[in-house]
């Protein structure tokens, strides 16, 4: 982690702390933080050793004792490492900016000039909270993971001192609108989070591990665990879904508790977290697009979550991605007008109301964030047919294995119809809005000039029907893709973009 440069530096040594700049040290709580991270690094090899011996010849007392011994040694080593890192870490503030020195054997010096500081992110993890300290990450535009200077344990006074150096890097609550997630919204957000896509794979892995353990226990028991009827499988499936839902609800509670977003002069500040308080500062010029995500469990209630595409933040904590975890769909425009007018949708806020021509083919369907154009009617069957055909194939193939239960696959058939209902787009005044459905219904709102690239695509079948797709990429996680537009329209939009 602390690699010293192996080549001679142009300036022999980083400037020593000048007499005028008092050298600061971290709060001793940093020993705990550093030790914990060192222990984390040691834990994996230890787990491998344990796992090997268990797989090798079962777990006996000797192995257990030996592992325990390794654990104690590892812990002692971790604490020593933590102490050394704390005792050798210091930072100072001078005319040159913030300087940071760490390391005993391999030493590392970092200097960040004041005008390069993009943000001072303050976090409070479980350990920090225990000791009443805070973690400060000095962020520059370099875009590496974590801060360029990371100070894991500072007393509030020291944090205030750092913030005083660069007030513009810190959006104070006073300098802009702010909105906190209310208790009721938190409950609603947690119960409708439904991040099954994240939880289910984890459960699958756990299930597999459990299955292996059961096999070790004795194959007879394991056979009993495997359901012998399709009904049993469905029961297991439902149980898994319920478990996944409970986990996702808990996860959302922990992640979104205390969520607050503050709009400053030129940056957003987002704070969140129950166990791990995290705070992220996002410069506004790095916000490229807003996604309005209406999840399956939220849509019936007219609720959605807002997330932002932040360029250069791909590796940073997810704190930088959620703009607000729960908003009523009807209030999205007001929310954006208040916090991100740069991103608010087409023909809203910027222009007088009357200037937008009301065209009949424009549908503002119930719950739509913004008025949208539909793809032409002849595209409908292209949305609807593939899932219907897929479902029929599944039914026929599945009938041989599970009999009438295969009919469950028909539940999948209306998916294409839902996609057709959701598909919509609008491109006006340089603002782009694209709505698609992929389980969740997502609307991307962004100024078109923020795109990274744009594409039109047409396959052989679309060519005959004069249809084409349009894709506009705004970042690693945001690509607005609308399928089966009229070819001429798609290409005109492509040229105008």
């Amino acid at each position: 982690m602390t690699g010293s440069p192996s080549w001679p530096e142009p300036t022999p040594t980083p400037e020593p702390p000048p007499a005028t700049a008092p050298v600061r040290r971290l709060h001793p709580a940093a020993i705990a933080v550093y030790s914990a991270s060192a222990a984390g690094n040691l834990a994996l090899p230890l787990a491998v050793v344990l796992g090997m011996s268990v797989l090798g010849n079962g777990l006996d007392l000797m192995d257990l004792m030996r592992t325990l011994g390794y654990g104690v040694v590892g812990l002692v080593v971790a604490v020593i490492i933590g102490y050394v890192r704390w005792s050798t870490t210091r930072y100072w503030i001078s005319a040159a900016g913030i300087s940071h020195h760490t390391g005993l054997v391999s030493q590392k010096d970092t200097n960040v000039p004041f005008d390069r500081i993009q943000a001072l992110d303050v976090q409070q993890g479980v350990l920090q909270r225990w000791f009443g300290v805070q973690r400060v990450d000095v962020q520059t535009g370099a875009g590496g993971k974590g801060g360029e200077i990371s100070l894991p344990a500072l007393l509030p006074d020291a944090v205030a001192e750092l913030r005083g150096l660069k007030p513009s890097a810190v959006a104070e609550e006073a300098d802009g609108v702010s909105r906190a997630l209310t208790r009721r919204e938190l409950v609603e957000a947690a119960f409708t989070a439904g991040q099954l896509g994240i939880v289910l794979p984890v459960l699958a892995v756990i299930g597999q591990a459990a299955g292996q353990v059961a096999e070790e226990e004795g194959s007879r028991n394991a056979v009993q665990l495997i359901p012998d009827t399709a009904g049993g499988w469905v029961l297991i499936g439902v149980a898994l879904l319920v478990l996944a839902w409970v986990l996702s609800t808990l996860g959302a509670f922990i992640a979104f508790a205390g969520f607050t977003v503050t709009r400053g002069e030129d940056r957003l500040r987002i704070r969140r977290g129950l166990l791990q308080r995290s705070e992220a500062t996002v410069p506004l010029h790095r916000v490229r697009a807003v996604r309005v995500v209406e999840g399956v469990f939220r849509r019936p209630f007219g609720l959605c979550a807002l997330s932002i595409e932040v360029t250069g933040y791909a590796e940073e904590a997810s704190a930088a991605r959620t703009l607000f975890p729960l908003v009523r769909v009807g209030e999205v425009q007001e929310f954006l007008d208040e916090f991100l007018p740069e991103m608010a949708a087409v023909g809203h806020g910027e222009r007088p109301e009357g200037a937008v021509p009301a065209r009949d083919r424009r549908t503002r369907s119930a719950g739509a964030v913004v008025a949208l154009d539909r793809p032409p009617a002849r595209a409908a069957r292209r949305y609807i047919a593939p899932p219907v055909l897929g479902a029929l194939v599944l039914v026929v193939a599945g009938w041989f294995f599970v009999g009438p239960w295969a009919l469950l696959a028909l539940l999948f058939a209306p998916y294409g119809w839902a996609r057709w209902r959701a598909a919509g787009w609008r491109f006006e005044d340089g603002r782009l809005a694209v709505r698609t459905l992929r389980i969740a219904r997502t609307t991307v709102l962004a100024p078109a000039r923020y795109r990274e690239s744009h594409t039109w695509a047409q396959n052989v079948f679309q060519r005959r029907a004069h249809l084409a797709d349009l894709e506009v990429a705004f970042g690693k996680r945001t690509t607005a893709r609308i399928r089966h537009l009229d070819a001429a329209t798609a290409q005109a939009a492509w040229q105008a973009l």
Partner: protein
Amino acid sequence: MIAAPTRTLAPQARLVWGAAQLGLWGALAIGAAMLSQVDALDWWPLVAAVVGLVVCVPLVPILRWRRWRWDVQEPGIDIRHGLFSVRQTLVPWVRVQHVETRRGVLEQAMNLATVVVHTAAGSHTIPLLAEKDAEELRDRIAELARTDPDA
């Protein structure tokens, strides 16, 4: 219909693609032949592989090369390609983060280079360019990166 960009890839690209197709279908044909030896399986996988060998090896490189078009223009890099599905992409200059040039063994032998243009959202590949085209592209991007404050 939008006009296609005008520049093509290097003519030798067809040879490189031909070699790749030959490798693919050749391996499939050998595999199919071995399968039919081992287990007296049907002979149709072998027939399919041989048909693929005869049809795809000469045809795919020619068609693909004809369809592949690119150009450097005022707004950015214009790329259009695809046989069954045509895709045309525009990458504005200001969004180019960096450019990468790759040269495999065959490409080195034929003085070709593959240029990969990276943006914050992903990368776009222009394969098998003549070396002078690849250099022009790289220089142009470097020059724009110097002048543009946003880059």
